């Protein structure tokens, strides 16, 4: 089907699809979880004025941010100050390129998709550091430095957690991983497929914790730490630039949730056994249309967990955070890899 559309049409579809795939989860997460779920958990209603049940609040906020004055501090390094938010957002768009939404509905089909994904997710660290340094503000500098330390420290557990999945799926291609999850069987029982959340449970938990830290969400939000650093590396940003940081934060949350559902929950598919398919080639064409919806549902589930933890926990101190990553998460994920490798060879 893709072959019948001219190249420019396919590229246009990909670009539009990419933008939707990044912004739609961001918007949904912000409205559903940030505005409404957090409010209900805190015994209040949240935004109710803009639109029915406050559904237009997001557009109102975007409009508000867009019409603000473009401020930048006097002592700031203007060029880097302006570039920093764009780099953080760019890393999100780079990430979505590798997430498949159906057997044929993908943006790119990298054989080393997982490798690419892990590498590209570190680009946001650069943006945060740039924001912290160029703001000419001590609070921002503190926030930026904390962020650098934290984000780099939590890259490792993320990488190590994913290796278990790669060992089991025998491939770094995300589409293959999804196909393996839905096509395989657990000890001969194939009705559920083989979602790696069951066999790689330890890896799943480590991955979700590392994702929480990569997003600088509480309990790992030292870089932002509202009660100490005002807004950390984002202190001096207002208006459109702050909006980009804001969108980037929630879009990255959505994209990481998509990746986690691809790696652990079986992605766009349902167990092939339900429809009698045997491998990726046999999957029906309608899956290309149903896939995104299934993916969205799984993403909502995972981002619900991320947001729920965000609203409940106080934050770690910087050194406790680092200690947790280096002394707890990394050893656990190393053991996980070892056990996975042994079991893979044994069975």
């Amino acid at each position, binding site marked *: 089907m893709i072959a019948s559309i001219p190249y420019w049409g396919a590229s246009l579809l990909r670009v539009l699809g990419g933008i939707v795939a990044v912004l739609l989860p961001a918007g949904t997460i912000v409205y559903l979880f940030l505005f409404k779920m957090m409010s209900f*958990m805190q*015994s209040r209603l949240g935004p109710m004025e803009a639109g029915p049940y406050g559904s237009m609040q997001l557009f109102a906020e975007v409009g508000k941010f867009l019409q603000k004055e473009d401020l930048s501090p006097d002592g700031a390094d203007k060029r880097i100050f302006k570039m920093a938010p764009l780099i953080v957002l760019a890393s999100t768009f780079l990430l979505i390129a590798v997430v498949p939404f159906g057997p044929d509905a993908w943006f790119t089909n990298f054989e080393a998709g997982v490798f690419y994904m892990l590498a590209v997710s570190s680009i946001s660290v650069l943006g945060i550091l740039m924001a912290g340094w160029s703001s000419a503000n*001590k609070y921002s500098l503190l926030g930026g430095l904390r962020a650098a330390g934290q984000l780099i420290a939590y890259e490792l557990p993320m990488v190590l957690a994913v290796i278990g999945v790669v060992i089991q799926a025998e491939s770094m291609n995300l589409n293959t991983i999804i196909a393996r999850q839905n096509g395989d069987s657990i000890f001969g029982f194939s009705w559920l497929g083989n979602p790696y959340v069951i066999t790689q449970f330890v890896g799943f938990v480590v991955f979700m914790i590392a994702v929480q830290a990569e997003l600088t969400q509480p309990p790992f939000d030292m870089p932002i730490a509202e*009660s100490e650093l005002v807004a950390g590396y984002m202190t001096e940003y207002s208006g459109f630039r702050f909006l980009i940081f804001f969108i980037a934060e929630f879009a990255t949350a959505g994209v990481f949730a998509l990746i986690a559902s691809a790696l652990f929950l079986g992605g766009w598919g349902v167990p092939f056994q339900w429809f009698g398919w045997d491998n990726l080639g046999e999957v029906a064409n309608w899956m290309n249309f149903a896939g995104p919806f299934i993916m969205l549902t799984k993403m909502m589930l995972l981002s619900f967990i991320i947001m729920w933890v965000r609203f409940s*926990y*106080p934050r770690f*101190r910087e*050194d406790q955070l680092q200690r947790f990553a280096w002394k707890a998460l990394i050893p656990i994920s190393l053991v996980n890899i070892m056990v996975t490798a042994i079991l893979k060879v044994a069975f």
Partner: protein
Amino acid sequence: MTMLGDRQQLAYIAAQAADARVNVELETEGMTLNIGPQHPATHGTLRIIARLDGEQVVWAEPSAGYMHRGYEKLTEVRTFPQVTTLINRIDWLGSFANEVPFILAAEKLMEVEAPPRAQYIRTILFELSRIANVSLFLGDLGVQLGAVTPVFLAFRDREYVLNLIESATGGRFHPNFDRIGGLKDDLPKGFIDETKAVMKKLRTFCDTMEDLLFGNEIFQTRTRGIGVIPKDVALSYGLSGANLRASGVDWDLRRDQSLPMAWNKAEWKVWTHPDGDSFARCWIRLQEVREATKIVDQLIDTMPAGPVMAKVPRIIKVPEGEAWVSTENPLGEMGYYVVSKGDTGPFRVKIRSASFNNVSITPWVLKGVFVPDIITVLASLYFILGDIDR
């Protein structure tokens, strides 16, 4: 020509010397961070100047006075009943409690005692303002540490207490209800049942806070062992209230002195903690809210009937003398040293507020802690700006 040459030479030598210095001692100078006066974490306009080495505090100094209103000077031109309106606003979260020690000091000088019913009602309102004040502390504690949910629950449940205070006195935050010789009015109809219902709700709130916040492992790691204040340091700085009891000193001014109030008519416990760290201070305040609900319940049940105002002249002239009364306010020990010259107004009032002493220990306790711990320690010491600055 020679002068220019000399100056140029001097500049060159100075530049060389500067280079040499940089090369020899690659010392990074610390960063001076200004926390406040406008900052999300300080309970008002407190400014803390901290010199940091990386993330560790080398030296920290609070700079108070952004809210100084000159109360001690203002009391000298007011009559005794007018002073009550003024001192309401010192600790504005538990405001009825501010009026009580001053009224008791004036009554001591006049040798007048409020009737028993007034004493009971005073104690009940005192404990209600303690609950209002400390429940906000519990919510605020969460926000300082990053947990955004407890503060909403705290404000929600605090509204019930404020409604109670408003139904009795007419004001949520500044009741101005205490009078020399008794109270302005009796309690409204339905107060007793309403109070019992609210106390039940507050006990549920305390249990929720214990689960949500105190039981959380991250909260424990953030507060245990942080900002330890040993007993003798606490005493020599004049720390009071929960801060002192958290360092192991068993001293509660409600139990340990005999004032014409009704605390000795109820059964309640004084909590102490041996650790002296931030967790101890926060935990003791949680228990104190529970004890306060118990006191209110017991006093509401056993309140005697009778008048609420003793016989005092219409224009109050307090005889000459000096009196000191201090009570166990929500923030600590608050006292008034009243000097009267037989006039309608005081000659000098020295207001001893708890937060002034509590914050003065900050330079001592903040040496060597990390930046996030500054916030934790300040949150656990718990001060109100109006109390520091008067």
